[in-house]
């Protein structure tokens, strides 16, 4: 097991190097010039000399191989460089947004787990009953409804509802305060996007839990347990649930990684200053250094989450052994 973990950790390096090369090359294929966007993007007159000076100062006039060499050198010494747009360290730019994205991802994941696992288990245990139909309807609605749309509905609902019942409209705060500085402000801002994304996320996980549970509940060892006279509650919670969690863990792991950088539209709806918004800004501004760093961050999170899922697999199912 430990050998496997070390081996998997070593395999992360070539994956990350491959991703770094790929993202560098792909970004250079995308049309756009940060200097043109910066000085003339809103239609203002763009002085060609100013544009040229900007390109020189950012190293964009250097041949591609020189830019690539500089980038890879930085990659190996963990120097991600400075944002071409703001001139600030990329680590600072990402750091400002990381806490918010991490918190939303954790809250959405917790929301999802709290909803999905009990509902999936109940739905499977009560297969083809009214309870099962209601749970399936709930999860299908969650899959069908984009979280940003649910977010818009939530905001409008809050605005209209509070106006109607309290006499003045209220909506969640639109500026971020750390949970350590102002917990009430923080929670009242982030609970809504966490619920909106957590619901969609839970819908997928509920269906996965239900089908995995159904599969496990049909296994021979469950029949044996029943034949031995064990009560249904013990069979489901103690014998079936742990094994049924294998595919659910995969879904949770991948969705968590996705949430760290993928909440682009939801962040816009709730005005969250997260990594998704930064990602979109960096791409539309052709800010190569920032985009490269963000892609590498998301790749690292994905690779790491896959690694964690694999380790959890082994823990959940002792039959799984890795050579």
């Amino acid at each position, binding site marked *: 097991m430990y050998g496997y973990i070390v081996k998997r950790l070593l395999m992360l390096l070539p994956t990350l190097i491959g991703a770094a090369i790929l993202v560098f090359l792909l970004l250079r294929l995308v*049309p*756009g*010039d940060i200097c*043109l*966007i*910066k*000085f*003339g*993007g*809103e*239609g*203002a*007159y*763009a*002085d*060609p*000399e*100013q544009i040229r*000076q*900007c390109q020189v100062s950012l190293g964009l006039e250097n041949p591609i191989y020189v830019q690539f060499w500089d980038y890879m050198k930085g990659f190996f010494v963990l120097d991600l460089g400075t944002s071409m*747009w*703001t*001139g*600030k360290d990329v680590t600072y*730019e990402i750091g*400002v*947004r990381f806490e918010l994205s991490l918190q939303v991802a954790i809250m959405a994941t917790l929301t999802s787990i709290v909803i999905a696992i009990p509902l999936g288990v109940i739905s499977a245990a009560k297969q083809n009953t009214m309870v099962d139909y209601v749970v399936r309807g709930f999860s299908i609605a969650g899959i069908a409804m984009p979280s940003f749309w649910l977010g*818009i509905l939530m*905001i*409008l609902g*809050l*605005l209209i509802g509070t*106006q*109607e019942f309290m*006499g*003045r*409209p*209220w*909506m*969640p*705060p*639109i*500026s*971020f305060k750390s949970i350590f500085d102002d917990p009430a402000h923080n929670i009242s801002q982030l609970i809504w996007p966490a619920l909106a994304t957590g619901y969609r996320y839970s819908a997928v996980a509920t269906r996965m839990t239900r089908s995995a549970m159904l599969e496990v509940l049909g296994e021979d060892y469950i029949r044996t347990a029943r034949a031995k006279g064990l009560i249904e509650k013990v069979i489901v919670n103690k014998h079936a649930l742990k094994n049924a969690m294998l595919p659910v863990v995969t879904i949770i792991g991948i969705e968590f990684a996705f949430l760290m950088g993928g909440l682009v539209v939801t962040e*816009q*709806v*709730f*005005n969250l*200053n997260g990594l998704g*918004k*930064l990602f979109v*800004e960096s791409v*539309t*501004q*052709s800010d190569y250094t920032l985009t490269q760093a963000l892609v590498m961050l998301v790749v690292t999170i994905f690779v790491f989450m896959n690694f964690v899922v694999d380790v959890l697999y082994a823990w959940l199912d002792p039959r799984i052994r890795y050579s």
Partner: protein
Amino acid sequence: MKMLWRSAATTALALGVAAIFGPASPATAETPQYGDELRLVVGSKIPSYDAHIESTFGMIHPIRPFYSLLIRVNPDNPSSPTDFVCDVCEGDVPKATDGGTKYTFKIRKDVKFHDGTPLTAHDVKATFDKIAFPPEGIASNRQAYFKTVESISAPDDYTVVFKLKNPSGTFLPSVAMPYNFLYAKKDLDAHGYTWHQKNINGSGAFRFVEHVPGSHVKGVKNENYHHKGMPYLDGFTAISAPKMSVRLQAIRGGQADIEFRGFPPKARDDLVKALGDAITVQESDWNCVLIVTPNHKVKPMDDVRVRKALSLAIDREGGSKYLSRIAIVKTVGGVVFPGHPLAATEAELSQLAGYGKDVEANRAEAKRLLKEAGHENLKITLHNRGVDQPYKVVGTWLIDQWKKIGVQADQWVQPTTPFYATLRKQKDFTISLDFNCQSIVNPIADISKFLPGAGNNYAEFQDEQLLKWYDELLAEGDEAKQRAIIRKYEKRVLDELASQFITLWWYKINPHRSYVKGWKIAPSHYLNQALDNIWIDQAEKKRQLGG
């Protein structure tokens, strides 16, 4: 229903109080209150803090309150395009001497930068030297506006003298541009000319507290501000909110007080419907205009008859009436901002192609011209910018207008970056929408947009006559003569050559919470952003938001 009872009760209470104490004097009603914070929402990003190289309201709105200018648009009368007042200078804005070629500014002795350094004439000189005569390798976005300046000197600590090469009607408006933040000479000398891109040391009404990228900028009251008694606010927070619906809902939900760029008519109506008297709406003509730019190097736009026909087809009056209900455009005008003394009158405009009141006659003439040019069944593609307000709305309207003279048009919409790449580099378009959007109303400078060969003119044509008239205009100090030259210039652009043509001027709509007082709308979203004249009616705010 609850709201109805509430407003009825409030009205009854107000009437009762008024009956007992008599009508309040206007002075009492509008006496500014001190304290509280303004929360504004901003829909664009901050590229850097250096206004000398930036052009976006995304930087002006959060950063301008930290800085002073030499002169500025009168904050109490910002809708006037010609009313300038001193900011750090003393008394009135100086008149030109020496035949219109010398401006002498006396600098106030009580102005300090936020780090405690007194602001002197040397700081003003260093600032304008950076803008007008930047050293090799240093960018200055408004250098062209100061071409007429021969020298800037500071004969003593509190006098600055600008010497011009010739009398110029563009000089004072150029000095009053909101981008001309005054920097400390010692900062420029010690830290270099790029230091202000990442650092702030101004002498404005507010001191910089923090900027969290992508989130907000925070400022607190400058207790040493040179305009005594101001600012009224304890501070402000400029919240970054790129999505318009978020900015709108933020005002509705009490998370923000105001947005300075402007909302479309529908958003205004929604806010007013939802909040009633909790919303105040200020509206103004806007110093921005959408321009149709044909590419003269591409057939059939090389034919003046085709260009003129396309302009004749546009019902500008009708557009003003109906389009203004859904888009941020309204005012019919020529090449000069309609509110300025140098702008064409209605009678003058009606003499130009496409401005005559008889739309059917205009369109009949358009059809005749197309037939004469051999393009009765013309098909064109309008290149447009992928921004809803007002580009795509106006683009769709134009296509419909052209349909009425038998022209089949479709739209080629591109995001901003490739849109400008097409205009500036590839030039592979037949006809495109473009815009001219300025801060200070400065007609002589602004009409350079229509000058052949200008860096921001994408029509790809040459005309010696226009260049000659523009040079004459720059050298002319007399306003009546300037006006006459501009009329000739305008007729040449819009009628004789139809080299480019105007659609409608923009219309600015600023709904804000009614407890925000003191701020007056300007004909530009870059102007009147010092925030020093804004105050909050705190009782009204409490009534609306509680707390």
